[in-house]
C-alpha cells in the first residue's frame, strides 16, 4: 500500500545554480580577481569590445575569457589573438551560460594564473538575465544599429545590469541620437552607469576599463 504526502519545499528553482554562482563570486573575491559578465544581442559588438580590452590590458594583466555560443570557436579565437587566454563553451541549443558551465571551465584552470575574467554570454537580451553566473558586475552591450527601442523592448536585462554600454557610437547620425538609449537605460534602472563606445574606433573603451576598476598598464 502507498499513501500520498505533500512536501512543502519553498525553494527557488535556480537555487542549485545560484549556490554555484555564489561559490564562484566568493572565490574570485577571496583571490582578489575580477569577473565580469558581458551580455548583449548577436552583433552588438561584445567580442570586438573584448578584443579591444584584451589589446589594451594583456601586457599587464593575465586575462581569461569564457565565450558562450551555440556553435563554433570564432569569438574565442578572435579574442585569443589579442593576448587573452580564451575558452569556448558551445551550448548546443542553450540560450545562456550557467554558473555550472562557468565552474566547469574554471575547474580546468588554476585561477591564480589569471587576474581578470570575462564571460561573453550567449547573444540575446532575454535568457542570460535570469541566470547568475557568479560575476561581480553584469554588463549589457547594445548598439546603435539595434534601433532606438532596443532598451525599452528588453527592460528586464537592464533592471539587473550594473553597466549599460551603447556601442557603435561612431556611426551615430543625424537621424539617431544615442541619448535616447542613454535616457532609457537610466529610466529603467535608476543610477545605471551608461557608457558610449565604439569598439571599432576605440571610443569609450578607456572609460569602460576605468569603470570596471582596472588600472591601465
Amino acid at each position, binding site marked *: 500500500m*502507498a499513501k*500520498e*504526502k*505533500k512536501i*512543502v*519545499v519553498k525553494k527557488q*528553482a535556480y537555487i542549485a545554480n545560484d549556490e554555484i554562482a555564489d561559490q564562484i563570486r566568493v572565490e574570485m573575491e577571496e583571490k582578489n580577481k575580477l569577473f565580469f559578465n558581458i551580455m548583449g544581442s548577436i552583433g552588438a559588438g561584445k567580442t570586438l569590445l573584448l578584443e579591444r580590452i584584451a589589446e589594451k590590458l594583456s601586457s599587464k594583466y593575465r586575462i581569461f575569457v569564457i565565450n558562450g555560443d551555440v556553435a563554433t570557436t570564432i569569438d574565442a579565437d578572435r579574442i585569443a589573438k589579442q593576448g587573452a587566454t580564451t575558452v569556448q563553451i558551445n551550448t548546443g541549443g542553450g540560450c545562456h551560460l550557467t554558473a555550472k558551465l562557468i565552474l566547469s571551465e574554471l575547474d580546468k584552470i588554476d585561477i591564480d594564473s589569471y587576474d581578470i575574467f570575462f564571460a561573453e554570454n550567449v547573444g540575446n537580451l532575454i535568457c542570460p538575465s535570469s541566470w547568475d553566473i557568479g560575476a561581480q558586475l553584469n554588463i549589457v552591450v547594445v548598439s546603435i544599429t539595434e534601433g532606438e527601442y532596443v532598451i525599452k523592448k528588453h*527592460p*528586464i536585462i537592464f533592471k539587473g545590469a550594473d553597466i549599460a554600454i551603447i556601442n557603435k557610437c561612431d556611426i551615430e547620425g543625424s537621424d539617431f541620437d544615442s541619448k535616447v538609449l542613454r535616457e532609457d537605460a537610466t529610466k529603467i534602472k535608476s543610477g545605471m552607469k551608461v557608457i558610449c563606445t565604439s569598439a571599432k574606433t576605440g571610443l569609450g573603451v578607456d572609460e569602460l576599463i576605468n569603470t570596471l576598476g582596472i588600472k591601465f598598464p
Partner: protein
Amino acid sequence: MHEYSLAVAIIDQVKAIVKQHKANRVKKITVSAGPYEMVIPDLLYEAYDIIVDELDKFRGSKLELIMKPAEITCLNCDYKGEPSKEKDEEFAFNFKCSKCDSRDTHLNMQYLTIETVDLEIPE
C-alpha cells in the same frame, strides 16, 4: 527558450526530495513565479512533459505554475509591495509606487520557486 533549463532545475531538486522521502513516484509539483520572470507557462509545461516521460518516478506527474503579482521596492519612500495599476505607456515594467507615485522603483524578482511536491510514498 530557457524553459527547458528551468524544467531540468525543478526536476533535479525534486529528484533529491524523492530520494529523501523514499517515494514511489511524484504526483504533482507546484511552482510559482512573478509575472516578469520571463517564464512562458506552455513552454515550461511542454519541456517538463518531455523530460519526465523518460523518468520512471516522474512519468505522468503534473506540473502546476502559479503566477504571483508583481512586487516593487520604491527607491523614494521604501514602500515594498504591489505597484500602482497605472502603467507607464512608454516603459514596460517601469512601475509606479502605490504610496508616493514615484517611478523610481525597483522590481523585486520573484524567481521561479518550488512550492510543494505531492509524492506517493510507501505505507
